């Protein structure tokens, strides 16, 4: 690797890491903190990506009052040729749009979370898991079949809100994504430490007792799913904006199963663990991807299958030999607890 290759490698890696960190945080809040096995994350991610993509061009036309008779989805590329120059020339408008789109992404995620969990929220854990997984499929069917959403299988492009960065577009995009991810990390980390988070954990640890203590289980679980889905939606929107285009190809493996493996690797229940797990996983995956050509000659089979074998085996290994992941969930200290308990302790 030459130096600039190392830089490129790192930048791509950080971009992936940011997106997956957000999704993993969403999952950790649901499964790790509240104990809701959401195997349908992909729905919220795809929701964020598709709906944002669907609205982005339309909104851009409206807000930048670009006058065109063309349909923003059908003649997507041509319309964007009118929009992108404006964005390229004005970073601040672009950033404004970015924030708007992220909000839309989050909202779409929430909507998806609502749709998928509403019929299932009262079900037993296992039912819920399978049901959410099943519902995860629905959006790709719609995305492919209903052209006004994202123009069918061909997908659609989004306004290039990073265009102003010119040849450094992807560096800036990555930086911003990382920023968003870190902000969300801090937010969730704090949220979990509030009394609200404490109740979520209580529900995870013992639903009946929580009920006997007057907690409205359903409402808490619902809000956990919603927050998680909002995060997934934001991640979806971010990735769509970063890559500049969306096709109805968001699948279970990439956007439900991999985040599960990441959180697992890091340690369910701990946000730091989640972050570490995501970083390690993405890094491993990219390294395998990068070096596969080097050991391709020694493999008796096509090297692209290596990812599957290694990821799968790695996960099984972790599950058997270190089920709690790299980082064990810590007993989060109680806000304002220190002084009182401090003097209670001897010495």
């Amino acid at each position, binding site marked *: 690797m030459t130096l600039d290759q190392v830089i490129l490698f790192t930048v791509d890696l950080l971009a992936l890491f940011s997106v997956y960190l957000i999704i993993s945080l969403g999952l950790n809040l649901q499964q790790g903190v509240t104990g809701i096995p959401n195997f349908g994350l992909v729905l919220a991610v795809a929701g964020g990506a598709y709906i944002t993509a669907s609205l982005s061009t339309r909104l851009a036309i409206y807000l930048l009052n670009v006058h065109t008779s063309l349909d923003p989805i059908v003649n997507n590329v041509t319309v964007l040729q009118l929009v992108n120059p404006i964005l390229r020339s004005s970073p601040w408008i672009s950033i404004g749009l970015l924030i708007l789109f992220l909000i839309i992404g989050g909202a779409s995620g929430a909507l998806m979370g609502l749709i998928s969990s509403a019929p299932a929220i009262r079900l037993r854990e296992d039912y819920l898991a399978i049901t959410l997984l099943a519902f995860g499929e629905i959006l790709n069917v719609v995305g492919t*079949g209903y052209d006004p959403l994202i123009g069918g*299988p061909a997908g659609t492009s989004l306004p290039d809100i990073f265009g102003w960065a010119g040849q450094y577009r992807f560096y800036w995009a990555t930086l911003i994504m990382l920023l968003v991810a870190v902000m969300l990390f801090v937010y969730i980390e704090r949220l979990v430490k509030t009394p609200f988070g404490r109740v979520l954990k209580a529900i995870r640890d013992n639903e009946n007792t929580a009920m006997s203590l007057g907690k409205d289980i359903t409402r808490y679980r619902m809000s956990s799913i919603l927050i998680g889905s909002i995060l997934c939606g934001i991640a979806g929107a971010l990735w769509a904006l970063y890559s500049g285009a969306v*096709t109805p190809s968001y699948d279970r493996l990439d956007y439900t199963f991999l985040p599960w493996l990441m959180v697992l690797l890091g340690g369910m229940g701990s946000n*730091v663990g989640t972050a570490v797990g995501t970083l390690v996983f993405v*890094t491993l995956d990219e*390294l395998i991807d990068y070096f596969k050509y080097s050991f391709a000659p020694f493999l008796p089979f096509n090297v692209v299958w290596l990812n599957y074998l290694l990821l799968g085996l790695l996960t099984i290994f972790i599950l058997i030999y270190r089920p709690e992941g790299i980082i064990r969930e810590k007993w989060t200290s109680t806000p304002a607890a220190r002084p009182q308990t401090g003097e209670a302790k001897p010495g």
Partner: protein
Amino acid sequence: MRPIVIVFIIIALLVGVGIGYAIVPAPAPPKTTLPSTIPIGVMVTLTGSFSSYGARAEAAAKVANTQINDYAKSLGIPTTFNFLYEDTQTSPPSVALTELQTLYTQGVKVVIGGMTSGEMAAIDSFADTNHIVVIDGTSTASRGSVAPPGDYEFRDMPAGGAEGAALTAAFMSKGYKNVAMISSSDTYSLSIRQAFKDAWLAAGGNLVSDINYSYPATTDFTVQLNALQSAVAPLVAQNKSVAIFANMWEDVATMLTQAKSSNSPLLSLTWFGPDTYAQDNTIISNAGAEANQVKLISVIFAAPLTPSHAELNTAVNASIGQEPDIYACATYDAAWIAALSILSAGQYNGTLIKTAVPTIAGQYYGATGNTALNPSGDRNTMDMEFWAVVSGTWERVATYSSVDQSVTWLMAV
């Protein structure tokens, strides 16, 4: 516990990078001459429902790779071309973009491949930003819908539309006024669907059914068969002439056999097809009898059996036991165009190579004939042929001239 882990991770990463320095031949950048090794990215679909096409394209690219290196040696150029294969479906997230980025970090400045318009759209901005030349051998969705012209993407296959006209001409010359169409819901099939619809309706044809099915999720075609049946039923009843246009992939075999098993009257009609399964022996082995019955008259870009084409056929056959389809041939040609452009540019530099490509493509005459590109970087329209399943094998039954848009039938079907 935690710091240890983080330290461990950092070490692991450093080691990884170290290995990188050690075993990845760095494309040393003296800008004036060509490096000793030139990595060229090959992006094909090895997983999922198009994998059988991807496998053929990969095999063809491998053949091209060896031939190109021999050629370079014969010219005494101290450079070896090293093809790096990426599956557009693997590695998260399944967006061609991440694969392109991986390749770029390997020092790849030229990528050839077979990608859908969607995938092309996904990599467009990265390719342009980083001056990566992409020569695509598949996607024939019309150019405007993918990327603005004059950028770093080329195609050595024509834009969509040509097939639509050819099919229309074929139906007309066979005296069909009514056509029932079923289309797979992927980019490629949909672009053909649109092209055919436009041409057919313009020519005053009557489209009695135009249904989509989701591909590959559809495993049972009963619903689609029923829909087609009820569409053609009235016409059959008044014995008007009607034909089926199965705008599908290799899964047409499934629909044929399921039609057979439900004794569907559709099998008594003549079926037409796009180039996705023309000359495809999987159809013969999967649904030979049914295909024979409905003939499956399929349009395909005329790939003259040039010496290089013949050579390619034998080579691919030897490696995977299948004939390369037209896309495999196009990928093969793309590889050659890429290599020749690099050689003529004299540097492994995207901007220079990009300017060289059109000229090279204009002069090159490969497995798909001459590959001259039009101003927007697409292959000029090619002549076409119609192949049908006759007595258990694919036979060339007609030719189509893109000049006067006429079909000449070579044998009765």
